């Protein structure tokens, strides 16, 4: 087997004016061989999409080296093509024109271009749609166009950025099957595929090798081989076991944080997920009721609630942050405050939530403390936003702030004036 692409000691950081660099990827190593499908699996924000863009030549890493066919990579290489999560089709070009785009960029002549585009369109099952515009197509058909557009240039390496996550379950499954069928029949004009996903089952279904990423900063936490022969059976016990194992791996990192003084200091800068209180309450009630009775296996729970790991894990972790739940080895179980919450009435729930925010979310506590100290009980949000941005990207800072605002409003701990961008104690009873 021959090595196509190698990434060594890769580090990606964004420079911040005020403070230390934000590290997105740290010391990542990756090697791609001919004939394999490799998955990058991780939570959103673990830097896996950034790594994909580095491999694509769209980004140059801050440090580390990337080689393609043994030579250093400078900019997007010939022989690498990408499929996008959002399809990235040009709405003003027909299917045929979209597919021809990459060939045109290479300066391929018109007749040759049309011939190859038609071949790719037929291969991917789009025959008859050549003159349609993307907006006339369903999501699944659009992603087929994206795939045909990537394949038509006969890339050695096909990059796929969460290619199925914008599709409904049935369509996504059909596309996966078609892709893997073409792959094992060796009809795909590619030598290797690198696929980014947050769907654990998808990774196990498609990949020969999976790199599991951890977040903050992104690192390759585990590397797993998937030994099953294609076509794979999702219901096979060995398949299920591997999925369960990966769930366990992905949740192992989450050690319960204890509200000691030291933890409170650093905890201020912990990114929070903006999970609505309705979802949290719903999850707690579900966990408390039969058949779970306070403890659920995460993959099973995800299946029952029709959620992906990437959607369920933030909810579970939020329960853990608030002290209503605990995650360990792929299981989510309810704590005593969680049980109490499940059976409480509205006012008690709010009181429990307020208590959890005050004791376990340092940011919420800091905001409330500031508001109590001010004579007019108002404080500019920008101050807290700036402080958060010293430790995380602006997007995360905003999400963290939105999370705290949503929770604090529910708990009637403090309120927020969107027009003035200020936290306030208006509408808040003194008792809270």
């Amino acid at each position, binding site marked *: 087997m021959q090595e196509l692409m190698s990434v060594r000691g890769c580090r990606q*950081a*964004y*420079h911040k004016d005020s403070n230390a660099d934000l590290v997105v990827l740290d010391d990542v190593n990756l090697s791609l061989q001919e004939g394999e499908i490799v998955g990058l699996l991780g939570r959103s924000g673990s830097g896996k999409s950034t790594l994909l*863009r580095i491999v*694509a*030549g*769209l*980004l*140059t890493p*801050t440090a580390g080296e990337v080689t393609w066919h043994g030579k250093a990579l*400078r*900019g*997007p290489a*010939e022989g*690498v*093509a*990408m499929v*996008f*999560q*959002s*399809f*990235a089709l*040009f*709405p*003003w*070009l027909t299917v045929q024109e979209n597919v021809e*785009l*990459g060939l*045109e*960029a*290479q*300066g391929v002549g018109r007749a040759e271009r049309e011939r190859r585009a038609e071949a790719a369109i037929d291969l991917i099952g789009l025959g008859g749609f050549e003159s349609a*515009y*993307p*907006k*006339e197509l369903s999501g699944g058909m659009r992603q087929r166009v994206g795939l045909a557009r990537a394949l038509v*240039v006969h890339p050695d390496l096909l990059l796929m950025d969460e290619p199925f996550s914008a599709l409904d379950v049935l369509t996504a499954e059909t596309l996966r099957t078609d892709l893997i069928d073409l792959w094992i029949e060796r009809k795909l004009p590619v030598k290797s595929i690198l696929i980014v996903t947050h769907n654990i089952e998808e990774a196990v279904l498609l990949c020969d090798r999976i790199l599991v990423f951890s977040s903050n900063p992104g690192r390759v936490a585990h590397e797993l081989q998937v030994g099953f022969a294609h076509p794979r059976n999702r219901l096979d016990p060995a398949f299920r076991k591997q999925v369960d194992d990966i769930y366990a791996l992905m949740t192992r990192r989450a050690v319960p944080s204890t509200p000691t003084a030291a933890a409170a200091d650093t905890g201020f800068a912990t990114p929070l997920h903006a999970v609505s209180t309705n979802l949290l309450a719903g999850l707690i009630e579900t966990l408390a009721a039969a058949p779970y009775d306070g403890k659920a296996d995460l993959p099973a729970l995800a299946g029952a609630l029709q959620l992906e790991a990437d959607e369920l894990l933030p909810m579970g972790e939020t329960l853990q942050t608030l002290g209503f739940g605990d995650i360990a080895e792929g299981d989510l179980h309810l704590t005593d405050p969680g049980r109490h919450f499940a059976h409480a009435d509205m006012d008690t729930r709010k009181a429990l939530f307020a208590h959890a925010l005050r004791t376990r979310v340092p940011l919420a506590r800091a905001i409330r403390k500031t508001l109590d100290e001010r004579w007019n009980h108002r404080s500019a949000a920008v101050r807290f936003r700036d402080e958060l941005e010293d430790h995380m990207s602006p997007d995360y800072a905003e999400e963290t702030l939105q999370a705290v605002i949503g929770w604090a409003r529910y708990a009637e701990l403090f309120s927020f004036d969107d*027009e003035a961008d200020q936290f306030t104690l208006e509408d808040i009873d003194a008792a809270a």
Partner: protein
Amino acid sequence: MPNLWDIAAILAVAILLVAIAQAGRGTLVPLEQLDQPAITLDPWRLPEFALRTTLRMFAALACSLLFTFTYAPLAAKSRRAGLIMIPVLDVLQSVPILGFLTFTTAFFMGLFPGRVMGLELAAIFAIFTSQAWNMAFSFYQSLTTVPADLDEATRGFRLTGWQRFWRLEVPFAMPGLVWNTMLSMSAGWFFVVASEAITLGETSWKLPGIGAYVALALEKRDIGAVFWAIGAMLAVILAYDQLLFRPLVAWSTKFRFETTASAQTDDPWMLALLRRTHLLRQGGDGIGRAFTWVTGLRLGRPFTPPTKAARRNWLGDALFGTLVAAALGWALWQIWGYVTAELGWTDLLDAILLGAITLLRVVVLMALAAIIWVPIGVWLGLRPAWAQRVQPVAQFLAAFPANLLFPPFVVVIVAFHLNVDIWLTPLMVLGTQWYILFNVIAGASAFPGDLREAAQLFRVGGWLWWRKVILPGVVPYFVTGAITASGGSWNASIVAEVASWGDTKLAAHGLGAYIAQATDAGNFQRVVLGVVVMALYVLAMNRLIWRPLYAFASRRTTLG
């Protein structure tokens, strides 16, 4: 809020005006009388005049497109250039170029002494200045908001800069550009009419065209000829609207960036003709293929990402900043020297006071236009059958050069000895009110059906319905229309606050009349002063009233 770069931009534009005025004055002295083709009031010559007027329009449009395709990419691709180029564009949008017509005319006459070419170029330049800025602005905004995934796709597929420009950036900008071109053309008709008959001090020039025809009719007190000219203009605008812009706007919807198929509307008859006639389609395909070939050439190099994380080049920034500061300091000194040679503080005070009078006019007119057109627009917008019929008419009326309609008003004012300070005022809004109407219609048509139903079920009616339901929904649209309308009204004040009928000269008090009279007297310093003060008023109004209002309205009236 205005920042340092805005001030820099204002100074840069002011020095530009001073330079043009200087150049214009320099060439004014040895002016020879032109050997002009005679202009007569014979209505049979109107088709010829109309054609010449139209040709001028399209020559200017070509210049504007050229400007748009060079200025905007430069401003978008270079961070440093963009810092000064964009505020300059913003200020230029607000400068009432009409006041400068005479200087530019004199300048171009100087380039081609004694030949009609100079006059033609001056007219074309005047139209260009009324068209180019908002087109460039729209293109720039599109360039900076290209969707990230499409951008990555073009980079990933190794398209060169040239290919990326034609395959991604231009198509993405197309709907906005076409719409702004349409607005520009509307402004252009106004200018072409004004620029065909120029009087500067003792000298006056006329270019064969509808504008010159009307000017002559005014001198000769021939109201019949005025109506002939209006008729001819109506025919021209109707033809251009039907043959060019309806098809163009319909065609450009293809480039709208949307992932869902929107409601299909019928092709305008002209586009249908083009699309379905075999011969025409083949010709079109040939041109299309040639275009695809040229734009697909592999000019330039494919994208390579910056090797080091792009840190700012502080030295370069400092050098650039110093350079701009030095240039502006010099500009300030020049302007100061130029203006103080003739004028004192009292003149500035005069201009500001007169500006306040014109401001009062604009505010009153906007309020009146809102009171009249908002209810009508809402009524029409909520009835799709009506809206579809009225919308093209409103857009058509906006394109009609309102200055052609001034003479009948003036005749009435003269005949009844009406107060000019009051009765000349409506002329300012004659051509610009339609922007308010068609934007409000668009807003009311877009008002969500479920909200209307909810209001109906709760029996919200009368004043409460206006206050809580429909007005908040149309405010962002109203503001969009009012920005265009008020800017246009300021500009129109230069021709609307003074009027003449034969030997009778009417003048209202206001900054527009101040500029017009200074122009007649050949007092360049006063014209510069008047124009700069007016530009500041327009800028201040946009920045302090319209933009905050728009931001507030769109924040309040959208979910999420």
